[in-house]
């Protein structure tokens, strides 16, 4: 598994904390959802980054009150055909205006990169190395899209009008 | 004739392992000498769930063909024949003439 962000493979600054393990004072930590919600008060003063691993069958509305505390949200694709996290991502970006890192985890394959980007993900725990290496190439596959989404790409309709 | 990949492995008679060639979907059978054959006559025939399971595992590990499953055959006068209508159609094609020119 490789972490891709900014179009490149990078080292993961976040340490995954398992359920009841103590949270280190330093370093970015990735917490399970239950932990974040339970320890919200304690974590309020933490200076270093907090990330949360949010399950795909749980409404992100529950996470909304904590968004200002969270620097990274990891959403899950238990298998790549389970597309619930695409909706979660869009709601976080577009409705709740989440500006931190939105990371795709689980089974993350090459042919989903563009959908993920457009849904608002900007970091990817890519399952296969060749896919991670091809990331920058793959996201250039399509030059235009019909519908607006969470990314900055201008959908086709306004582009058509501009072209006239 | 329920989609065979949804069935549990139950062997009540002679069976073969069959699949579709990846490149063009043509029907192939796991061969008696390893690999695949398009000829049913050259297919490996087994009679136990154990043997069928092993043959199927071999087939699934070989990417030359896909969607492998265990299919019944009938042995008649030393010949291997398809064991049901679905397998007869897979071997011989649709049960009517393909349209060349019709209605004319």
């Amino acid at each position, binding site marked *: 598994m490789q972490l891709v962000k900014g179009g490149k493979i990078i080292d993961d600054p976040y340490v995954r904390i398992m359920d009841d393990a103590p949270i280190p004072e330093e370093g970015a930590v990735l917490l399970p959802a239950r932990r974040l919600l339970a320890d919200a008060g304690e974590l309020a003063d933490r200076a270093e980054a907090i990330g949360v691993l949010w399950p795909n069958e749980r409404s992100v509305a529950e996470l909304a009150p904590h968004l200002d505390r969270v620097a990274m949200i990891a959403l899950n694709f238990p298998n790549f*055909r*389970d597309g619930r996290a695409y909706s979660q991502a869009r709601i976080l970006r577009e409705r709740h205006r989440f500006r931190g890192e939105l990371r795709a985890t689980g089974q993350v394959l090459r042919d989903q990169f563009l959908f993920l980007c457009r849904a608002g993900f900007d970091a990817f725990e890519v399952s296969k190395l060749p896919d991670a290496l091809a990331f920058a190439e793959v996201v250039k*596959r399509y030059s235009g899209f019909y519908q*607006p989404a969470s990314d900055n790409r201008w959908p086709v309709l306004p582009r058509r009008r501009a072209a006239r | 004739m329920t989609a065979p990949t949804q069935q549990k492995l139950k062997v009540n008679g002679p069976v073969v392992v069959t699949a*579709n060639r990846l490149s063009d979907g043509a029907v192939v059978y796991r061969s008696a000498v390893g690999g695949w054959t398009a000829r049913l006559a050259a297919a490996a025939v087994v009679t136990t769930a154990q043997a069928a399971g092993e043959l199927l595992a071999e087939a699934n590990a070989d990417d030359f063909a896909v969607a492998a499953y265990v299919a019944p055959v009938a042995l008649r006068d030393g010949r291997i024949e398809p064991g049901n209508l679905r397998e007869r159609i897979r071997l011989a094609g649709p049960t009517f003439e393909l349209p060349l020119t019709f209605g004319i």
Partner: protein
Amino acid sequence: MYVYDEFDRTLVAERVAEFRDQVARRLSGELTEEEFKPLRLMNGVYLQLRAYMLRVAIPYGSLSSTQLRKLAHIARRYDRNYGHFTTRQNLQFNWIKLSDLPDVMAELAEASLHGMQTSGNCVRNITTDQWAGVAADEIEDPRIWAEILRQHSTMHPEFSFLPRKFKIAITAARHDRAAVRVHDIGLRLHRNGAGEIGFEVIVGGGLGRTPFIGKTIKPFLPKRDLLSYVEAILRVYNQYGRRDNIFKARIKILVHELGAERFAAEVESEWAAIKDGVLAIDAAAIADIAARFRYPRYERLDDDPAELMLARQATAGFDTWYRNTVSRHKVPGYAIVTLSLKPVGGPPGDVTAEQMDAIADVADRYSFGEIRVGHEQNLVLSHVAQRDLPALWQALDRSGVATPNVGLVSDIISCPGLDYCSLANARSIPVAQELTRRFRDLENQRGIGRLHINISGCINACGHHHVGHIGILGVEKNGEEFYQITLGGRSDELAELGALLGPAVPYGEVADVIEDVIAAYRELRASPNELFIDTVKRVGVEPFRERVYAAR
């Protein structure tokens, strides 16, 4: 006809390039079958019993003659010289090699054709009335809206991995020829009390293992809100549709389990957050799409010109065909012509490459180059001048697509069944063929009147048997083919599911049973003018059951 612009063409070309790469990675083994299968499905590529099948999208059933010629070319060059029109207005090729598919896609793209989203757990072909744009009872052309929805749902980043497939149909006529009440979303364009045109939104219809008639969750939705409302429905479905059981994953199950009211409330709640956002459709957006629809420059013509009247009197065959296949057009002097793809003994909906070319020529000559595909698996020429009907008939007759059986008992709708499809339990095409032979006599057919027989080879119901006046469903019992027969289904604005006639019937007896059902109808009908479907409604299934099973 919608004409692609640069953006549309570029998208399809990029799709072809992506697919070429995916096929190469599959053939090299870099992609496993499990990883590749959803990708090929999203391009309409199925693996069937003995070959791959490619389902080409024909958006809302509209084809140009150029496109039809391209399909003929593909049939000749890469397939076995024929294609099959489906109950969702698409075309299927049954013998294409995976290794050829990238080239096939590239050639299709040259004619603005593709297989995008004709399969997979995404929004499928948006279907409509095959008389859209020309029907006399239509309030406006629903194809504009079908195109708006098509673009919005193409490669939608959020809705490409839904729990299951998603089918949308739209109608704008008083008489529903698009079966909107048995789709995941059905849209009915109509006028409200204030005279405004908007959509009735119906959700959760569908056939298959658990058939449902859809529920109206929004009686009137303004045009402006169509995309945001559909987005809200899809988002609710994407999040809450079941993913634990493939047989319970359609939206109809979610609507049924929540109840229509609660489902509607979930949609409204989601919609409230987005209805005034970027998806609101303004007049400029509609005009943009409408501008790329080409409409014929109709001449000013009179109804019933002399050429037509003389030919009707002079040639009995022409008159028979005219009365059966020609329908009223909204423009005076013009006509809508249905081409029957149901010749006696033929597989329903199949067309040879030669026929495709001939129909393309005829479309150019007599119908402004436009052809429509109906979900009942016939074709339509939508803009024929009435004075051209006699010449058209002769040309169609030469090509074998002028059988005057449209809407009659031998105009059968059938899925491909066990002869092709790996999901099937039983064959459907030979059943249809035998029925067309039993009922070949045209006078007999006219004496029976309007009657839709629908045949499905398995419970997935691609033949729409639940909504056939007579529905035939193939099942397997102890390795033998048996058929369940239902009566009284219909897919139009009075949509209803058929009721079981009696115990399943073996393959060899199906045609006999259908003959008995029709004999019973002749006996039970109040008059020769009472349609089969109305007789069933009036007397119920019991009198049919008694007569049919009496001797069995």
